[in-house]
């Protein structure tokens, strides 16, 4: 699947396109098929996302998983600071990242 990600313009937070809006949770990412660039053009103008781009991902039983390690790290947070990731209390949070 193809999904869209970028950083929130105001906060810099990593965000994912859900089909209608942006979410900080990769699980919410929607498959955009071939429409990625089109959506990005509109969203760029809407001033929500900064540096948006389209990536490959896979939908697994546990959720949406970006194909590249860089985006998996973006999805969760720095691997060396589990306390600062999106799921700080979850010991299994990072199993799929690396």
């Amino acid at each position: 699947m193809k999904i869209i990600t970028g950083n929130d313009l105001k906060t810099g937070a990593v965000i994912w396109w859900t089909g209608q809006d942006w979410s900080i949770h990769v699980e919410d990412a929607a498959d955009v098929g071939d429409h990625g660039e089109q959506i990005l053009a509109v969203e760029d103008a809407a001033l929500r996302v900064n540096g948006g781009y389209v990536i490959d991902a896979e939908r697994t039983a546990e959720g949406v998983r970006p194909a590249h390690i860089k985006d998996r790290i973006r999805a969760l947070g720095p691997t060396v600071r589990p306390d600062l990731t999106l799921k700080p209390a979850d010991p299994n949070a990072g199993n799929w990242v690396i």
Partner: protein
Amino acid sequence: MYRYDKYDQAMVDARVEDFRDQTRRRIAGQMTDDQFKPLRLKNGLYLQLHAYMLRVAIPYGTLNSTQMRKLAHIARTYDRGYGHFTTRQNIQYNWIKLEQAPDILAELATVEMHAIQTSGESIRNVSADHYAGATADEVIDPRPWAEMLRQMTTFMPEFSYLPRKFKIAVIAAEEDRAAMRWHDFGLRIVKNDAGEIGFEVYPGGGMGRTPFIAYKARDFLPQHQIFSYLQAVLRVWNRHARRDNIHKQRMKILVHELGEEEFTRQVEEAFQHILKLGSDFPQAEYDRIAAYFAPPPFETRLSDEIDRSDPDFAVWVDQNVAAHKAPGYAIANISLKPIKGIGGDITAEQMEVVADLAERYSFDELRAAHTQNLVLPHVRKQDLYAVWQALVEAGLADANLDLVTDIIACPGLDYCSLANARSIPVAQKIAERFADEARQKDIGELKIKISGCINACGHHHAGHIGILGVDRKGTENYQLLLGGSGDENTTQAKITGPGFDEDGIVDAVERAVEHYRGIREPGERFLDTYRRVGMDGFKEAIYG
């Protein structure tokens, strides 16, 4: 240390308000990202993996307790409670919100700090020996000249749109603690036979994708001609630089392509012309600036005795404390490399502890070292024990300066959007492998430096052991390099051979270290042994 006058303050304040307005316009949609990006980069604001990243300059690594407390306050209020000291005497915050960035810059301005020229095609924060003003082996304190260069080059229009970034380092000692020859423009202050002060000038260094060690262009440049000389260098570069090709824009490439001799010839020609324009600082201005760096009022008749009855303290003294020029004083290095920690990272609380120690025991002075450690430059030997106890309490008393676990590592793929691979976990695994204190001591001085990509922020070209993260078909892979150095005998590290995965690279480092231990001659450091025997034996030990 230098204090802003009303002009400095007015310029920095005005810049904050400019940026506030620019940020407002970007958020309101009156500017595109393409328009805004160069403006935010001029104020040290990057966009990284998880958020915006702010890089704050610490000119020549010198700061006082008020500034350190402000850095702590920023970490706590606007970031997630910590900061990261870099290899160029800057500090980076990793979790900055764009909407708050102008407020942070305003806070910094209240303590005479800013993030100007910490990015972009400008003359970057001028770095210097972190022992400046404290070490006995310097000709003079290099910081007045570093400060003058900072003033000359900040906001100077001719230097604002350079072909690429330009990095200056100034030292004044025989021993190079600032990786001076890895800079675009390295300066060593020397005294000639007539007792006059001048510069040895080393242009054309730099790391990154195409590393070059700076060459010596001048044995002696009279000190008051430095600004003319720098202008001449920049003018030649500006004239020829390959602005069409991002990989060829650094000055080192031009020096390489023209050849050292021709580059020097053109610089000298331009220099003769510029010198006549009379743009160099007069002596009175030097004296005015130098007065800010007058030595603190050292006490006399202090004892040189250190009570070493606490064995843990004695270990720390032996490893982390360096000789001071004033009798009864010492230079205390604070390691930011705890075994399970993240090199260069420091919490807001730790920053405050360090600020308190500086205020109480070091004439209110602190230094950030390019090795991602901190320094209390002027501590009475009789106070070292109290300092150490406070550091122990704060988790800052690791006695590993310059040892195998004192590793430089860039943020890598955990934070950096340009990275190929993670650096920090590799540093942590190596540190854990070599955690045993006796073994570290036995190995002796060994500088491991790790970069997460070819940009070489982690100085892998200058590592006795260097590690470079690469992308191998979508997975992290690490190349091993040996034999680099950033000291007075600067050398560039060489790649050993095929790369390794994360665990493999830790094993490979250990094999290289054990090979050294097996074949070293008495008194030899890892680097000495490598230089004596060369790559082959090491290669065999590493790859079997």
